[in-house]
């Protein structure tokens, strides 16, 4: 028999028996960040390709909600901080090795950019919108001239943001479940897929809907591939990573993961989209919402389960 026990100390419920540091705020922040990244990616992509009018939801409508998503995400992050008065310290330091730091800086760049873009398209939602001050109007005119540049900035930073949501976790060597290079691409893909789903939701154009359904199907395919790959990676690795994978293969997170993330969040919406593409009439609402749901659940489950997984010694 082997008996290992903590004789004393470590009475801190936030650290033992399992890490309990990050609660709903972080997964929500990661989801919103990923979603925003996904939307902005498509916005920029289609704008740069000159498809502004073919894909109005992607380029004009969806990005208008992005600033709100980002603000909500930042708010969640802020709520999570325990030493809030020192929040500003994030922006007096640039720590290239700290994902948290460059995430904060990425947001610092992309948030204002998203505001600008949203402002330029605010009339999509409120046709009678009028900027009250002339200087804003002048600014608007000025910025319209730089749309392309802005789009490029958005494209680059949305990819960084999307990857960041995964890297934030995967940089933690200490949590075997997170410590896989697949988390970056996985979260990026999941963010893109969520972005695509949102665009589908907002879109009124059949062409656009179809295109995004196709994109989404591909993304879901990639996601499934990445998930399988991730588990194979775990199972082929050290005991701690095998144990981490087991959280989902018979462990406490098995049901939640396979039902909420894989079945409801990936397989079923994929099926629905597939049927839809085959001209079955299925409201796009269902699959889009399922994808968004799956995307949220993925973050929640990975964040929570990751805190359970630890090194043994």
């Amino acid at each position: 028999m082997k008996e290992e026990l903590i004789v004393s100390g470590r009475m801190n419920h936030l650290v033992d028996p399992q890490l309990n540091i990050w609660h709903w705020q972080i997964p929500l922040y990661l989801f919103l960040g990923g979603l925003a990244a996904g939307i902005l990616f498509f916005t920029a992509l289609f704008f740069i390709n000159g498809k502004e009018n073919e894909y109005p939801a992607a380029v004009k409508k969806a990005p208008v909600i992005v600033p709100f998503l980002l603000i909500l995400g930042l708010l969640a992050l802020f709520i999570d901080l325990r030493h809030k008065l020192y929040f500003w310290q994030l922006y007096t330091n640039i720590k290239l090795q700290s994902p948290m730091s460059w995430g904060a800086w990425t947001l610092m760049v992309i948030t204002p950019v998203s505001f600008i873009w949203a402002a330029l398209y605010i009339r999509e939602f409120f046709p009678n919108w009028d900027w009250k001050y002339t200087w804003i109007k002048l600014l608007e005119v000025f910025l319209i001239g730089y749309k392309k540049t802005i789009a490029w900035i958005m494209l680059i930073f949305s990819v960084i943001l999307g990857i960041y949501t995964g890297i934030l976790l995967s940089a933690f060597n200490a949590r075997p479940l997170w410590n896989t290079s697949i988390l970056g691409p996985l979260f990026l893909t999941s963010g893109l897929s969520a972005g695509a789903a949102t665009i589908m939701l907002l879109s009124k154009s059949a062409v656009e809907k179809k295109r995004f359904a196709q994109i989404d199907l591909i993304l879901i395919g990639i996601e499934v591939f990445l998930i399988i790959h991730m588990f194979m990676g775990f199972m082929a690795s050290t005991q701690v990573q095998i144990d981490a994978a087991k959280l989902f293969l018979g462990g406490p997170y098995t049901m939640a993961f396979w039902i909420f993330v894989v079945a409801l969040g990936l397989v079923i919406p994929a099926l629905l989209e597939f049927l839809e593409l085959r001209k079955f009439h299925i409201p796009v609402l269902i699959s889009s919402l399922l994808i968004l749901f799956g995307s949220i659940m993925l973050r929640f489950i990975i964040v929570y389960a990751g805190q359970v997984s630890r090194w043994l010694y």
Partner: protein
Amino acid sequence: MAVDTKKCVGCSDCVVACQTENNVPIGYCREWVVEVMAGTYPQLEIEIRSERCNHCKNSPCVRCCPTGASHYSDGGIVLVESKECIGCGACIASCPYDARYPHPDGYVDKCTFCIHRVKNGLDTACASVCPTKCIYFGDLDDPNSKVSMILKRRKYKTLIPEAGTNPQLYFII
């Protein structure tokens, strides 16, 4: 720092002393004691370890800190500057040893190697209280320090070396 697991009795005096010396609030701790028993009655063996932050030379907690609150101080001691810490918890999640905790005042706290004492030429609180005198603290770069001497003489290990953190807390086995 080195801890002799052959002498440690797991009394947790070090834990209490750390708590009072450093005003660690009740319900939290900077150090803890682990006991590992193996075998079948009556062929048994126990290893007892007094654990704390390993003051890793390659420490993920410093790396992942977005503000630089977690930093290397004199002699490689890893410290948290409470006035720079935003309490994001990244360092807590990054430490494979779970050596950090969120202080109720918001910042993150952990073992400081009692730098306030060490600077004054005193032993750390845990080392100076330990009834079995099994905690050795000193300069690892000085070949004549108590720690260096004992590590030369005895077999030792570090915890989770495979995590690549290069821990500086040695367990004599």
